């Protein structure tokens, strides 16, 4: 399931080469679309060449349709994809300033890069202007910032803003785009000046494409809610293989060490009943009773992308069963406290003093660590350490990865 890099399916080290290749494609498409020509770009505003309108809206609609279908089939987790959040007024004023800039300069930043790369001097000057503009903004940031605050969009969707459901909104968007394309074609054909006419205009022969797009629009309008669950169920034999090796089992010392030092971003999930949990639980642990682990609201907790979940129960058997289930559901980074809380307490608080005749260093180390850990736990230090972490049983979805935006 995507997005691939934030979900760790592609190693983040590959981010930059991949993004470079995407940029390569972006530059090529912009240049090939004719966006390296400022006169072509502003043509949309004067009605002699609607290439911007056509490319821009076709691209937007293609991506919208793609994202909707990928979301539907569980291929893309749209809750984590990055969208800028901003103030309505800043967006409006900023957009208006860019509109003026577009008409005067004949480019927008992306197209100016494509045009500058083939040697268009006006584009290079435009890029110079961009730097000055960003610099001016930076210097007067104190003045600009907060000037246009008002109605903060926290990743609000356009259809909720208008009050339509997603399918209906996208349906009408596609219909409006089809009309816009038709009108653009009509206006282009009316341009009297032959020199201004775009060379690649073709007004007929799009019947099949229009029909296909219309069919997609209707499908989206009547598309039911997501029917499939988005997790990838793991094959039985794979779960079996995984359960045989000990890699998912965490020892008492390993858990204690993690709690005390926060080596990894660990999340202790106590799968015992609520009553047991209230009686005693490890510092920072959250309670998801075993019968409830398959509930959808806990899916994101068990699918711990960035850190590790350690499942605990009294003897370790219930936690092991819970581990089998969540692993079968395809969730990653779940571990089991080996021997459960009983063994943990025995190991840490009632550690037997090793025979002084034993010369093995590990045994003595282990004993000393257990004693230190017991002391810290008893004095409540550990509670203080984890109380800052604010681990809660999530009722709402949590964002697994903060993806940073660029533009």
């Amino acid at each position, binding site marked *: 399931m*995507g*997005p691939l890099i934030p979900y760790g399916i592609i190693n983040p080290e590959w981010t*930059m080469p991949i*993004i470079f290749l*995407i940029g*390569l*494609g*972006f530059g*090529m498409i912009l240049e090939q*679309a004719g966006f390296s020509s*400022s*006169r072509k770009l502003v043509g949309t*505003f004067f009605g002699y060449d609607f290439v911007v309108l056509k490319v821009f809206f*076709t*691209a*937007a609609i*293609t*991506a*919208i349709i793609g994202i909707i279908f990928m979301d539907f089939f569980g291929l*893309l987790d749209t809750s984590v*994809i*990055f*969208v*800028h*959040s*901003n103030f*309505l007024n800043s*967006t409006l*004023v*900023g*957009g208006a300033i*860019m*509109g*003026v*800039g577009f*008409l*005067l300069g004949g*480019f*927008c*930043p*992306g197209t100016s890069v*494509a045009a500058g*790369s*083939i040697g268009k001097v*006006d584009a290079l*000057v*435009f890029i110079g202007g*961009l730097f000055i*503009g960003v610099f001016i*903004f*930076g210097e007067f*940031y104190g003045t*600009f910032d907060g000037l246009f605050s008002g109605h903060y*969009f926290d990743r609000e969707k*356009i*259809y*909720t803003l208008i009050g339509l459901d997603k399918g209906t909104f996208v349906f009408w968007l596609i219909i409006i785009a089809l009309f816009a394309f038709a009108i653009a074609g009509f206006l282009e054909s009316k341009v009297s000046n032959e020199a201004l006419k775009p060379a690649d205009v073709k007004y007929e022969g*799009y019947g099949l494409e229009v029909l296909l797009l219309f069919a997609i629009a209707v499908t989206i309008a009547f598309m039911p809610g997501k029917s499939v669950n988005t997790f990838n169920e793991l094959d039985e034999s794979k779960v079996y293989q995984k359960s045989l090796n000990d890699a998912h089992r965490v020892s008492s010392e390993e858990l204690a060490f993690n709690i005390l030092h926060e080596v990894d971003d660990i999340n202790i999930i106590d799968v015992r009943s609520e009553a047991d949990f209230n009686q005693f639980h490890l510092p920072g642990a959250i309670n998801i009773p075993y019968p409830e682990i398959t509930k959808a609201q806990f899916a994101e907790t068990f699918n711990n992308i960035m850190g590790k979940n350690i499942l605990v129960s009294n003897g370790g058997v219930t936690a092991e069963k819970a581990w089998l289930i969540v692993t079968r559901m395809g969730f990653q980074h779940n571990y089991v406290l080996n021997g459960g809380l009983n063994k943990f307490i025995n190991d840490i608080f009632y550690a037997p003093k090793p025979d002084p005749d034993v010369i093995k260093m590990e045994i003595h180390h282990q004993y000393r660590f257990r004693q230190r850990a017991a002391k810290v736990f008893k004095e409540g230090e550990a509670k203080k350490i984890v109380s800052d972490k604010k681990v809660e049983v999530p009722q709402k979805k949590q964002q697994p990865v903060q993806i940073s935006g*660029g*533009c």
Partner: protein
Amino acid sequence: MNPYLAGVSLGLLLLATFYIAGHGLGASGAVKQFTVAAVDEVAPAHTADNSFYAPYAGEDYSMWDNWIVFMFMGMVIGGFISGAVSDRLGFKIEKGPRIGNATRLLFALTGGVLFGIGSQLAKGCTSGAALSGMAALSASGFIAMLAIFGVGFIVSIFFKRLWK
């Protein structure tokens, strides 16, 4: 290239970017990175003091940690390759028939300055805010698009001479 084919290609590229990286396309963000890096080089005390520059300045921040810089590099090379293949390379000033080179360049510079300021306010330009935002059906994306093109149309009434 047929504009609709170009549009579908661009849309698929944008979709792939969301699928792989979890974010959209962008261009003006790179200009911001370069600008801050330049200001930081000249006046590090100043950047540390300014809350616009500060997150992207200083010893422990490098613009090479930001993906958008690599996208920008890719765009430059991609555009060049495309221009070379289609035989469009060469230094040239493109302008409307009724204005001179100096006027064109002056307006190009002005347009760039405005776009630079506007993109920082709207947190993105035509590609980063409008196109990528629209793809994710975000309200700010659609509003940015309407503002850019709507105002562009209004202004076009007064600046016909520049282009026609």
